[in-house]
């Protein structure tokens, strides 16, 4: 995860910029017409924006040593999962990943992009085809040991979800291209 780690200074500055934008937007929230209202709708957002700005500046200007040591974000799991830490990419300098790319940034980009494609195709293509395709592509990318197992699970889970949610619970999942089949 260190490929995604930025210094507090950088984060603080980005957040400060965000806080300024938030404050500008807060200022544009219209005043309410009824004068019986003691607190206008923009007051609270203005206070929040100011707080965020203050904290962001604080983060940016404090000495680097004040932050937690690198790898601290891993603490939540570190104690609990010793078997993982042995091979953890965070511990060693060399990044390794689960998927087919060995570069963490590419790996995350692919995963986010793949999920985005899935979301985008969910309605036009329909729940069943989109989900099966996504599960298959996903497990292929993560170098599944036996692709046919993955394929069986993908089809099984998708149909079970469609049946259980769509038919039994009345949750209408998008039918997409299979709409003519009356799904």
């Amino acid at each position: 995860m260190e490929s995604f780690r930025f210094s507090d200074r950088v984060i603080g500055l980005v957040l400060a910029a965000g806080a300024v934008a938030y404050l500008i937007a807060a200022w544009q929230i219209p005043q309410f017409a009824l004068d019986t209202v003691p607190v206008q709708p923009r007051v609270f957002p203005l206070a929040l924006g100011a707080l965020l700005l203050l904290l962001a500046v604080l983060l940016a200007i404090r000495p680097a040593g004040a932050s937690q040591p690198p790898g601290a974000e891993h603490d939540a799991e570190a104690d609990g999962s010793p078997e993982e830490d042995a091979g953890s990419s965070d511990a060693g300098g060399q990044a390794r990943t689960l998927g087919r790319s060995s570069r963490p940034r590419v790996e995350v980009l692919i995963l986010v992009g793949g999920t985005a494609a899935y979301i985008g195709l969910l309605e036009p293509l329909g729940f069943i085809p989109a989900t099966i395709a996504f599960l298959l592509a996903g497990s292929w990318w993560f170098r599944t040991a036996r692709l046919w197992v993955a394929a069986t699970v993908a089809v099984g889970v998708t149909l079970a979800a469609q049946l259980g949610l769509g038919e039994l619970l009345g949750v209408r999942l998008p039918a997409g291209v299979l709409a003519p089949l009356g799904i």
Partner: protein
Amino acid sequence: MSARPVALKALAAVFALALLASACDEEGATEADAADPDDFTPSEPIEYIAPAGAGGGWDTLARTTGRVLEESDLVDVNFPVENHEGGGGAVGWAHVAGQPGDDHTLFMASPPLILVPLSGEADHDHTDFTAVSRLITDYMIYGVPEDSPIETVEELFERAADADDEDEFAIAGGSAPGSMDHIGLAGAADAAGVDAAEVNYVPFSGGGEAMTAAIGGHVDAVVTGVGESTSQVEAGEIRVLATSAPEGESPIDAPALQDEGIDYTFDIWRGVMGPPDMSPEAIAFYEQMYADMLELDEWAEERDELGWIDAYLGHDEFTEFLDEQQEEFEAVLDDLGLLGEAPDS
């Protein structure tokens, strides 16, 4: 279509449909009179839309009518309820407006369909849809905690008008300013000769919360629906000074505003509407179907349990009623200064 930003898609759809809707709406309305209900029979399940989440008023209406209809022999298709939640109804309305001419889609409607667009927070208003039938109504109560010194509704408005910083007088309601409870209060205050903008209305996120605040003495009075207040009123926790029913028609043991000399009524009506440009035959069919449904014993049973009052109007009268409502609400909102920008005019 790929992963295009949804906002863009929605925007494009809304534009296209607004055009379509405004072009097609009027013809559909006038031809309905001539159509014969026998010329149309639904051929597939009805997309039965509650433009809100499960458990609310629209959802209850959809599930109740859907069930009564499915169990009756009035119609052979099913009415699976779909909750299109969001935007105080705007998301559901946009969805329905996106299916012009679809004779197998119906949605639940009530005053927010008029109020939300008036405050400029929806792209569609009632004129973008086809009115099918008004079904039921409910009224507002104007109540005080049982130990309140206030005895009449006139006194209530006097106190509300006289209040100042030293002597606060707060009236709770279950919705945001400019929406149902507030309009019911402001309209009545206006009719009682009080400047509605001076009344200290405190919005809560539901009628139940508003009543709890009144029972606990945190506010001085409460406005909410008769149906929502039944248990507190029957238990004597809330004393009803008046209801918004027409003269002599108050459904509970309290006078109507008109009985008390305040000439104002407010209907919390609920009805069923369809997408723009529904075929006249379909309108005639559904109109007849709902009229018949209201006659069923099964309906009467559920209606009474839920404390609803039948208030049927067919397509033409319902359309007219909606126009009147819009005019009336517009005037009240204008007085309050809460009128938003008009929806696509």
